């Protein structure tokens, strides 16, 4: 799994004609019917489509939690369809971050421990590095003063911000977010989204965000629309610099608000 051979201009994700058919006894349900797209380094992409269009299945396959029935799936130049289960697990740990609709924090652990978990679980210890990075990430998501709170004592928005920090822990190349704000009220949803946008710009991490929220989708650089198991459009942003500037300003304002709210 060496990434040293990876070229800088290589796409983070290259999906070609990806298919997934669920087989239940003799009944076959094709869910993905040949999905093709690429994600470039540093992109923030919204994944749109009605329920049942195959978004979740696609994210699950991209997250290496499920294998496709056919097609090619390359991440950072590696052909993931050839990986053994153990190799996939390790690849997932190092290269992919997940943000779910429900925060899915581990309730018996503090915010800090939750963020460290993906690293500590792999190396077998809570290293000084992990502690430092997790603290930094929690600080970044505005939860410095909640670091040692148990996950159960945090509010919904706070939990989701911890989940964002956790997804970033191992410096992944790709973050997959499955309706990350779907379970939050408007205000919290905006805060979390703004945070993801900021972090994406700061770190250059590629984000693929499945969402029903038009407004949020508009703020992503690109939108992939799915319907009936295929990609129907993948509009790239117009690229007007002014729009980006406005986006950035809005995001900054939101972060400032968020910090005030955190105090």
């Amino acid at each position, binding site marked *: 799994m060496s990434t040293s051979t990876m070229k800088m201009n290589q796409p983070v994700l290259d999906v070609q004609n990806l298919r997934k058919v669920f087989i239940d006894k003799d009944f076959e349900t094709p869910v993905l019917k040949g999905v093709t797209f690429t994600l470039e380094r540093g992109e923030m992409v919204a994944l749109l489509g009605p329920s049942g269009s195959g978004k979740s299945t696609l994210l*699950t396959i991209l*997250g290496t*939690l*499920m294998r496709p029935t056919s097609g090619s799936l390359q991440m950072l130049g590696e052909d993931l369809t050839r990986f053994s289960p*153990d190799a996939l*697990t*390790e*690849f*997932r*740990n*190092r290269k*992919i*971050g*997940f943000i*779910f609709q429900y925060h*899915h924090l*581990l*309730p*018996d*652990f503090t915010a800090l421990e939750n963020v460290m*978990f*993906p690293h*500590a*679980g*792999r*190396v*077998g*210890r*809570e290293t000084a590095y992990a502690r430092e990075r997790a603290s930094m990430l929690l600080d970044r998501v505005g939860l410095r003063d909640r670091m040692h709170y148990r996950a159960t004592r945090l509010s919904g928005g706070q939990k989701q911000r911890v989940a964002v920090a*956790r*997804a970033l822990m*191992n410096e992944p190349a790709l973050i997959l977010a499955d309706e990350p704000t779907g379970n939050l009220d408007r205000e919290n949803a905006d805060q979390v989204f703004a945070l993801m946008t900021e972090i994406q710009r700061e770190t250059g991490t590629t984000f693929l965000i499945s969402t029903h929220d038009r407004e949020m989708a508009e703020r992503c650089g690109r939108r992939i629309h799915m319907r009936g198991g295929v990609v129907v459009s993948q509009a790239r942003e117009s690229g007007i610099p002014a729009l980006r500037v406005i986006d950035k300003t809005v995001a900054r304002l939101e972060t400032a608000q968020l910090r005030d709210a955190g105090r």
Partner: protein
Amino acid sequence: MRFELKVALRYLLSNRVQSALLIGGVAIAVTVFTFNAALINGLAEFQIQRVVGSSAHVIIEPAKPTPARLKSADGAERLTATQRSLDRRAQIKQWRTIADSVENLPGVTAMSLNILGTGLVSRGQMTMPITLKGVEPSRLSAIAPVNDSIIAGEPRLGLNDVLIGRKLATDLGLGVGQPVFVQSDQGRERTLTVRGIYTTGVDSLDARLGYVNLETARVLFDLPEGLSEIELKLENIYAARDLARQIANGTGLEVSAWMDKNQRLREALEGQGSSGSIIKMFTLITIVVGVASALLLTTMRRRPEIGIMRSFGLSERFVLSVFMLQGALIGIIGSVIGCLAGFGFSTLVAGITTSSGGRLPVEPALGQYQSALLLAAAASIIAAFWPARSASRIDPVEAISQ
């Protein structure tokens, strides 16, 4: 601390009631295990001590002459009837050399040189059979504590003295200082004086066995030179077999250890031992069933969390370790508590005096704590394996969407 261990501990602490019940369950099982061991082993020790306390640990007897057999020249099997020769009296003739070397063997604490014979004792018209044991007066109590069991008269063996049991004394109406007529199986007769009356608590012994001076026995049983047996007491009774073999090899005599002479005791001990093993086995099964079912529930409840861990790339081995470690922690903590409780309970019970004034034969030191610890911990780990493995194989997609 290993991170898996931290997670396992956190899980145990997060559900304190369940963990306490589990650990308590293991502790109770281990308490039963150790108390049972203390009782069974204590009882065995009690029985052994009662037997070996009043009998010899190693007995040296004359070799039984086996008839010589000539092999036929043609190698054919021929059936022949052979009989052991009884022409000569069985006796240990070279006893002086043997006694000298045996008494100085390491581990030998006491020795008695005996002549045994049977005869009849009579007073007036009443005649009873008797086994007479001729011993050196100075070694009267070397094997059985005769000195301490005298209830009338004194433990003295002059040339014309005899010590008899209480039952025989009652049957013949004999008292201390009274004469009794003895006729040996060698046809010798003598009138002896009852010097003391003893009781062993075993009627059959008290009715049959009398002690006389070794020199008196020589005359009565017409054995001017040899001995019937040499009895030994050892420091460590469990070394008896080895020592017996050693002496037998060195002398060519018939040498037996106490455990081989006490078939019944051995059977009783074996019976107790196997019933004890069954109880121990059931306590281990209890641990396995209890720990496995509780951990299975835990893994069920934590399915979504396990799914999350797998989704951020933690290995099956990590999940397996977390749940195996929970089993191990439950087993180790539970069995340590159980050992302490077992020791405490055995000590308490051992201190109780029964209505008959005796003590319950519980020996707290014989609770087999090491094997209880090892077995209970092993049982918990084995019990944890199945739930842990099923947890590690949870499909993260399914678990997260729960």
